């Protein structure tokens, strides 16, 4: 690189010129340098064109929908903790609220506090396991009698596995899960249709409130119909939308409460 020491230009400065990170007074020096050095000018022009090309190349990447499993990470967060200044107050508030109910059970929209966490727990479990390719269930439908006996014992009630063949869903199998209620055990049965869409039926004990009718809760892509029957909470969760889920949930409800 020729040029007097006063106008000596480094490669780092050429980069900064392209990225517009130079002090304004230095830009003119670089431009004077480029006018005298065609090789550097070609390099800078190429880098500038490259930057434009990279921007348009990467732009579509931002339009993709966020997977439900990522959003589920936030569902597990307590809202107020996000504001550092309010953190201590939030923790106290959560302790107070948690004493009587699930933290999620605040607000007049929730019919019965103890039931409140049911659709959330079911939805979270659904989002985790319905994505599983290798291990969606612990025990497959091939061993259905064993599966039902095992989960009935752990959850503490004689479980019935509804048949959803009419709705196009076959049983994949089931697994045991932790629960925040009753004996802390929940059962999850997974179903799948020909298109590979999955539904999960979640059952847990310890629902203190009285029996409830059919209720609906939705978050993001996932939606759940749930109810309480004889101290047990049931939730059917899927990602096909409320309309598609409703007839299936009704079939489950009818088979289980009959």
């Amino acid at each position: 690189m020729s040029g007097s020491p006063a106008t000596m230009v480094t490669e780092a400065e050429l980069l900064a010129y392209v990225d517009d990170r130079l002090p304004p007074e230095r830009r003119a020096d670089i431009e004077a340098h480029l006018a005298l050095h065609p090789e550097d000018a070609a390099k800078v022009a190429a880098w500038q064109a490259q930057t434009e090309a990279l921007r348009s190349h990467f732009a579509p990447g931002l339009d993709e929908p966020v997977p439900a499993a990522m959003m589920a990470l936030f569902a597990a967060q307590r809202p107020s903790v996000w504001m550092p200044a309010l953190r201590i107050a939030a923790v106290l508030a959560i302790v107070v609220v948690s004493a009587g109910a699930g933290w999620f059970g605040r607000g007049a929209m929730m019919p019965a506090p103890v039931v409140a966490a049911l659709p959330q727990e079911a939805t979270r479990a659904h989002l985790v396991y319905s994505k599983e390719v290798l291990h969606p269930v612990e025990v497959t439908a091939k061993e259905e009698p064993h599966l039902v006996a095992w989960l009935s014992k752990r959850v503490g009630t004689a479980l019935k596995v509804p048949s959803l063949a009419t709705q196009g869903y076959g049983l994949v199998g089931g697994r045991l899960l932790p629960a925040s209620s009753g004996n802390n055990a929940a059962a999850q049965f997974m179903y799948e249709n020909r298109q590979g869409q999955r539904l999960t039926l979640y059952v847990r004990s310890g629902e203190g409130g009285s029996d409830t009718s059919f209720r609906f809760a939705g978050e993001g892509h996932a939606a759940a119909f749930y109810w309480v029957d004889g101290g047990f909470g049931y939730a059917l969760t899927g990602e096909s939308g409320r309309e598609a889920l409703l007839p299936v949930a009704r079939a489950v409800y009818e088979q289980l409460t009959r």
Partner: protein
Amino acid sequence: MQFRRQPHPIEAEIPRLRRFALTLTRERDAADDLVQDCIARALGAWATRRGDADALRPWLFAILHNRWRSRQQRDWARPDNRPLDDAGEGPSESGGQWEKLELRDLDAALALLPDEQRALLLLVAVEGLSYEEAARVQAIPLGTVMSRLARARERLRQLTDGEPPSVNEGGRSHLRRVK
């Protein structure tokens, strides 16, 4: 009834985190796995974040990059693992295979860059991070950012046969065969 809550500030950054992760891993499942890991860690460390001193986006990118790097180190022993060497300039870094490739688009050219060079291009040229922020994300000195960036740009220029990658009417970059 809906589960109602305030959106977490991190949520708005997820598309950028996914794009950064995909740039590093070039594989969707691995990228999303990395983003899950990053979000979980960021939520765990949220309370320790130093307000304005840690601008949210570079902070998240740094966590993601760090997770990516520790996975690389964990997988280091795998015989099929590609070397991470940032200094590789010539064909040797990918066994000379690239010479024979018909480069169809910018994506193919980017695939031939070492992961950290490709990631740095995204950080600086696309995300508009300052060099200092990029240095913190990649946990390298500022001088290394400058030399890595120069190498990445020159290598990309080479790979696109001395011509700036231009976007043709089909929306894909047109690149000539590499000599």
